[in-house]
């Protein structure tokens, strides 16, 4: 073709994009899903989490209370654990029957019992014992001090089964309510001994969070958006990478394309450019959709918290150059691997596990203590996720950003070179069989 190598690359890319978006699946994965589905899925996840949380909070649990003598189960303990007033009604008049949450029903073991009996009450089959129903947790109260059998440590024993959700819920509720009983008893004893209960608390701490509400919102976004950026790019590149390589072989147009009077490298570079463009489009659309809907989506999770979720426009714009370089890297890797396949289905099978080399580093960005620095700036995938997180947090790590850009450029260039070499190999193009990974080295040899 008359004109430059780049013109040929451009023509191939334009043709692949034009025909690619005429395919329903490409349009679905590149446009529809990023715009609509991921925010909806995200919302569903949050709603599901809230439903489970709500269900937990509205679950009644039963706690068995065990003591040497029933009188050891004092009314204040009973009231605090069940959060009922002295007359037996609910502690808050505003709480209606159907809106009761965090209910704890108490059952008392009506005989002298020891630790073994307490444990057995939790583990034994209710049909065999005297109790009507197995409690979710069992609280064994120590014998009060002053008695011959009193426990010098004055320690209550709480038995629960951490593998059962109800039992763990019962544990949490008891542990949240017991300090009230303990504080009340401490105060009563102090008064009985004639000194001010305040003297038992020599030091208390009051917290003051000085972080601006928008910074807190940025922190929440920084835990999610970088990982989503990395994953959406991979998903955006996945389908076109398979379609333009293995799919073309399956449609018997691979040889047709080889007849074009342009350099073979231009053909494959054009394909990688088309894959990258589709991936960029999918990522940008997804980020816009998530950015616009983040406040609404996360409002449920942050209700009652002193947090404000704002659209991170500056960070979204700042990440574009790095995201573009990362997209080229991802597209080249996925296109090269997909090119080894002989059919569309086999291409999907090859890329399925290959996606993990991007998704695992992206998930690592949530690890505490992992930050963008002069070392992590050189780790592909992780660097772009950490850079985005830093940008969302407003960190001015300009040298690290520059290093990230340099690293991504190098990796993208290398990946493109390797992918083009692979795709241009006669065996890869024309053998009609999927090439196993173990032959990669021999294929790349000059």
């Amino acid at each position, binding site marked *: 073709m008359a*004109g430059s190598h780049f013109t040929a690359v451009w*023509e191939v890319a334009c*043709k692949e994009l034009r*025909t690619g978006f005429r395919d329903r699946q490409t349009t679905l994965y590149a446009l529809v899903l990023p715009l609509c589905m991921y925010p909806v899925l995200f919302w569903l996840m949050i709603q599901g989490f809230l439903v489970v949380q709500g269900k937990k909070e509205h679950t009644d649990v039963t706690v068995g209370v065990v003591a040497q003598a029933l009188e050891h189960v004092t009314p204040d303990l009973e009231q605090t654990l069940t959060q009922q007033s002295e007359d037996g009604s609910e502690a808050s008049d505003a709480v209606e029957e159907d809106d009761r949450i965090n209910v704890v029903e108490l059952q008392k073991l009506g005989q002298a019992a020891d630790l073994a009996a307490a444990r057995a009450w939790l583990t034994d089959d209710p049909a065999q014992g005297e109790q009507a129903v197995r409690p979710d947790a069992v609280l064994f109260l120590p014998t009060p001090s002053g008695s011959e059998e009193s426990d010098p440590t004055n320690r209550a024993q709480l038995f629960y089964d951490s593998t059962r959700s109800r039992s763990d819920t019962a544990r949490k509720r008891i542990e949240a309510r017991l300090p009230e009983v303990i504080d009340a008893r401490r105060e009563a004893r102090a008064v009985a001994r004639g000194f001010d209960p305040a003297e038992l608390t020599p030091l208390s701490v009051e917290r003051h969070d000085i972080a601006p509400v928008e910074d807190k919102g940025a922190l929440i976004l920084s835990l999610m958006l970088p990982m989503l950026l990395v994953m959406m790019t991979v998903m955006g590149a996945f389908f076109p990478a398979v379609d333009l390589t293995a799919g073309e072989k399956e*449609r018997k*147009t691979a040889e*047709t394309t*080889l007849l074009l*009077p342009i350099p073979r490298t231009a053909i494959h570079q054009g394909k990688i450019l088309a894959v990258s463009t589709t991936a960029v489009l999918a990522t940008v659309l997804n980020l816009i959709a998530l950015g616009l809907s983040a406040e609404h989506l996360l409002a449920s999770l942050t209700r009652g918290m002193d947090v404000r979720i704002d659209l991170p426009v500056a960070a979204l714009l700042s990440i574009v150059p790095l995201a573009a370089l990362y997209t080229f890297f991802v597209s080249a890797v996925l296109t090269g691997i997909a090119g080894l396949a002989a059919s569309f289905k086999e291409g999907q099978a090859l890329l399925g596990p290959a996606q993990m080399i991007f998704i695992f580093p992206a998930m690592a960005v949530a690890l505490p203590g992992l930050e963008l620095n002069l070392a992590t700036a050189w780790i592909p995938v992780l660097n772009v996720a950490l850079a985005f997180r830093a940008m969302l947090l407003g960190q001015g790590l300009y040298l690290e950003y520059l290093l990230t850009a340099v690293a991504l450029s190098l990796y993208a260039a290398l990946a493109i070179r390797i992918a083009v070499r692979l795709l241009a190999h006669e065996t890869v193009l024309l053998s009609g069989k999927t090439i196993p990974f173990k032959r990669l080295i021999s294929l790349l040899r000059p």
Partner: protein
Amino acid sequence: MSSQDGDALAIQARGLRKTFHDPQRGEVEAVRGLDLECRHGEIYGLLGPNGAGKTTTLRMLATILAPTAGSASIDGVDVAADPLEVRRRIGFLSGSTGLYARMTARETLRYFGRMHGIAKGPLEARVDELIEAFDMGSFAEGRCEALSTGQKQRVSIARAVLHDPPVLILDEPTTGLDILASSAMIDFIESRRSAGTCVLFSTHILSEAERLCDRIGVIYDGRMLAVGSLKELQSQTGEEWLEDVFKALVRDADGAALGDPVQ
């Protein structure tokens, strides 16, 4: 630019070899030192059974495959040294050169025309000319995936001749076609002779070779057994029918391979 051997050589191959590596069978020599010469305005038929090396030979000439050894040139241009120029001078058609399913016939022709460097105005005129010449008007705007086999064949031929190449290479062009489509293809090939185009096509259908070819090259087991017009081959083997000619040549070749004296 023409070959030094003569101005009329459109295709020339010397000692052409192609070896494939098969994981199960090891090294497989598909083409073993093949010589070939075709002239402008000539229809040359490459005749041989399945697995003889016909397709591999044609793919090497079309620069789809690189020769393992030997040399080949199209219109004087070496296929290894300047494959881009070779691709500008050939039109290639085979069972594995399909059409882009999501493009229309017109878009396909435009795409190839742009890639061949044809300017926009002349390209549109050329595309219209081909659509009319191959009677594609009723389906030129429809996607290729929706076309019938015969319609696809017409679009493929138009794609192959769009840039008016001096050499046409066709690999079993009538395979899979019905009677009418086959007949149309044969008519098309014949029409190229008068246009001065060199047509090299492979076939295992003897009647096509008998009807169309100025010369026939009989290929078997990667080697060229004999080359000549039908009359020359008949005279060489003493057989009348091309089928018997072919069998005689193969018999001689097998006998020579086993050490028997050649008749």
